[in-house]
């Protein structure tokens, strides 16, 4: 077995040193009835070559969004990842280290996290950010719980523009915590007004920018209305590249910003692992969930970094912790921070501009296709269109022609007849003119 360094002679000598007759005897605390003694049905070990062939065959049975014209989005986006990102995150010193509990021999991870926290605070327009969460959806649920701790109120209002998975996860994670969730109907037109729902029991209002149907909205007025009622505004950003082109939620007055960071540095990977971003105002930092990296000095007075404010966390506070989170998304956060470091101010803003410009081009082309209405007026790189018939069928037909046409809303919001014909299309810097040609041609054939 190629991963096991002990030889039979080693095992023999070690048992002698222990004074045990056999390895089996070391398991003497296990009740005899519970010992398997090999009695179960799984294959024996395989060579590296065989494993690669088996898993490679499975990979070959998929149609990768990177290999065909693809317009899929809805919370996961196909972007180009610079080669240096994957090279650097595969360095063993990053890949095979643990959470930086021993700071003297973890300064690499810690400094990278400090830089990550700074980048996240900058792009969201917030004061502080943590060292990452599992993903955007779980960050959203944790933000609602944080708002409850801060306001000591028990009602959360979720916008109809919130991604259905984010809503679903938030409802699930809070279902046993006596929190009232008021979720409004899907907001296809991007025109809902949530202000009227805010009352004295409201802990927070959760909005998303760009919204699930692609709409960009200015939440500044809503932030003021929240503040007047003592509620917090939580802004969700499902496509982090948008922050290079669009006013930051922090500048609109959001109190907590959560985002899905996948678009920077992390491949689509069929949905995970991704990286949740979590940013807040400094005055609320002690109510934040998750790990925080802070600056300090060592005994020689040199600048260094440690995990800090851990008295919020489960390993110290146990049942009184702000969250049960422990392992988060360290390596995905590293990929994010390296990609954003490579881009820099110029690159990040240009990438965002490119995404938007190409999306505008596609929207213009589709609006001239007979039977298609572009629903979203103001958008970043994703928008909704109404087709003349159910979108799910159209998507399947196009998939058969090797075009991944987008996400039918019915995949995430089934049984809503008003939305059955709605298709979400995303465009990124990877979408070329030829991809758009293929989509328009294929749609022209089936519609």
């Amino acid at each position, binding site marked *: 077995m190629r991963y*096991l360094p*002990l030889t039979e002679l080693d095992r023999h000598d*070690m048992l002698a040193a222990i004074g045990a007759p056999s390895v089996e005897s*070391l398991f*003497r*605390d*296990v*009740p005899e009835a*519970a010992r398997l003694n090999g009695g*179960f049905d*799984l294959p024996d*070990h395989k060579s590296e070559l065989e494993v690669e062939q088996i*898993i490679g065959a499975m*990979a070959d049975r*998929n149609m990768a969004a990177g290999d065909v014209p693809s317009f*899929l989005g809805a919370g996961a986006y196909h972007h180009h990842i610079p080669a240096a990102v*994957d090279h650097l995150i595969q360095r*063993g010193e*990053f*890949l*095979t280290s643990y959470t930086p*509990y*021993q*700071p*003297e*021999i*973890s300064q*690499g991870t810690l*400094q990278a996290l*400090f830089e990550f926290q700074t980048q996240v*605070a900058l*792009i969201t327009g917030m004061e502080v950010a943590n060292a990452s969460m599992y993903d955007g959806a779980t960050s959203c649920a944790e933000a609602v719980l944080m708002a409850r701790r801060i306001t000591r109120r028990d009602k959360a209002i979720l916008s109809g523009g919130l991604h259905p998975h984010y809503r679903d996860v938030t409802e699930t994670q809070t279902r046993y915590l006596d929190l009232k969730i008021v979720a409004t109907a899907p907001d296809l037109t991007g025109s809902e007004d949530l202000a009227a729902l805010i009352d004295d029991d409201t802990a927070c209002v959760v909005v998303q920018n760009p919204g699930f149907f692609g709409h960009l909205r*200015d939440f500044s007025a809503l932030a003021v209305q929240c503040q007047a009622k003592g509620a917090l505004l939580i802004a969700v950003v499902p496509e982090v590249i948008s922050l*290079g*082109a669009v006013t930051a939620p922090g500048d609109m007055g959001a109190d907590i910003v959560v985002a899905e960071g996948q678009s920077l540095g992390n491949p689509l*990977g*069929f*949905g995970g692992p991704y990286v949740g971003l979590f940013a807040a105002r400094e005055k609320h*930092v002690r109510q934040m969930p998750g*790990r925080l990296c*802070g*600056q300090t000095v060592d*005994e020689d007075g040199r600048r260094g970094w*440690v995990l*800090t*404010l851990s008295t919020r966390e*489960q390993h110290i506070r146990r049942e009184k912790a702000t969250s*049960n989170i*422990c*392992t988060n998304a360290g*390596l*995905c956060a590293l990929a994010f921070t390296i990609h954003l*470091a*490579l881009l*820099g101010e*110029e690159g990040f*803003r*240009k990438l965002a501009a490119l995404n938007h*410009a190409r999306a505008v081009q596609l929207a213009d082309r589709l609006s001239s296709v007979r039977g298609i209405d572009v629903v979203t007026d103001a958008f970043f790189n994703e928008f909704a269109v109404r087709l003349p018939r159910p979108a799910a069928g159209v998507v399947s037909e196009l998939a058969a022609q090797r075009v991944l046409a987008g996400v039918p809303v019915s995949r995430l919001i*089934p049984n809503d007849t008003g939305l059955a014909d709605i298709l979400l299309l995303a465009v990124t810097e990877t979408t070329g003119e030829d991809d758009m040609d293929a989509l328009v041609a294929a749609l022209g054939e089936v519609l």
Partner: protein
Amino acid sequence: MAHSRDLSRPRQAGSPVAARDTVLGHQGLRLEEDLLFELDSPGLSGVDLPNVPAVEARLGGLERRSEIGLPGLSEPEIVRHYTRLSQKNYAIDMGTYPLGSCTMKHNPRLNEKVVRLPGFAGLHPLQPVETAQGALELIDATAQWLKTLTGMPAIAMSPAAGAHGELCGMMAIRAALDARDGGETPRRRVLVPESAHGTNPATAAACGFTVDPIPANDDGRVDVAAFAAKLGDDVAAVMLTNPNTCGLFEPDMIEIARLIHQADGYFYCDGANFNAIVGRVRPGDLGIDCMHINLHKTFSTPHGGGGPGAGPVVLSEALAPFAPRPWIVHDGDGFALVENDADTGDATPIGRLKGFHGQMGMFVRAFAYMLSHGKDGLSQVSGDAVLNANYVMARLQDVMTPSFEGPCMHECLFDDRFLDGSGVTTLDFSKAMIDEGYHPMTMYFPLVVHGAMLIEPTETESKRGLDDFIAVMRRLAESARAGEQARFTGAPEFTPRRRLDETMAARKPVLRWFPAAETAEAAE
């Protein structure tokens, strides 16, 4: 698991000083590195992008107008920056990493190769399922392996980490109790051993339960009599780690399962230490109702400096109907996904715990690991892990103080009695190990012994490597007893940074970089 409490101490006068000053602070291969933000050359970028087509923007008047403040660097500067940072980390690839309960075993590079196949890496989670059959097949196959290895009938694959898996399992228990008791269950008390990971009580609280600690007996196991005495009509569940955090198998597991079931409660098993018994014992045969599996421990997906992990949860028949969406079904035509309540049939899932379908990248790696080891290799994994831990314990027990009598399982627990009167603490001892080229063991956990040192060598350490480690530990233990206090209290010396002031970090948190001008303003 390890614990970073505020244990730093000021440096004592007279302890050795750092190496002589150099112009830039570098010391040979030990290179200083500024923050990215301090390396800014405005206008530079490490990414060349195609030209942006001229279009009329449709951002609804929300164009970003202010500077973000991101620094500009070229690719060579970025590569050098992160390479230098990487060299300030300890890692499994460099040496023994005996962090108890964390399972720092070798991460096979094959697993990194297969997860990057375009057929997985380039797959969108919401593309039509008929175009992702290979991905669903792999998830399903991984699920089958995990069910077989644990002897459990059902599994929820989506939880993102161990603690997330705990949340999944405890929510399923809550849902099952609510369903059984017709509405909101009056059972709200969860029994958790004092030795448990902090995530256990935190998770119970997140499901609306209260936590009642169970004491350990003198052998480091659950006191079954004390446990039985705590059972009652208000008990929802017991959460138990087995092998436990003292590195010991709970021999009364089957009796504990019988008792909790007799009291109409459920049995949550924390599977953080499943690596000790994989391929040899099926937790299902011990009577549990659910257990999370840390794929980043037992099945060696890389820890990555703090994640990502994955925490699938195996479930008994009683809890299976409450498993969260999504899950995979297999019909004559292939695999399909159940994602929405409209398609869940008779099941009554607790909802959804994660966006999309879970940590696919971890499933691919774990599946490669399981195929590579097979049935024979996995039982060898647990056998060698337990052998290595017992070997370390046997070779150190005369100079250090084991907390409990052996044999242990995959990790061995020492306390600080052997340091009595030496002026050296567990923390000092750990820092001295760093100077000897080792990552310390888990310290101050579990909480049930004083100054805990929990050593988990894992099965991927060679005997030669263990003998070196043992020699170092013996020498340090003798040195502490001989009164050579300075080598401990002054440690570490040979690291990029010496002991860091954690009190200062927490008292006045600086959690991000600010431009020098703003820092000066804030100081005024």
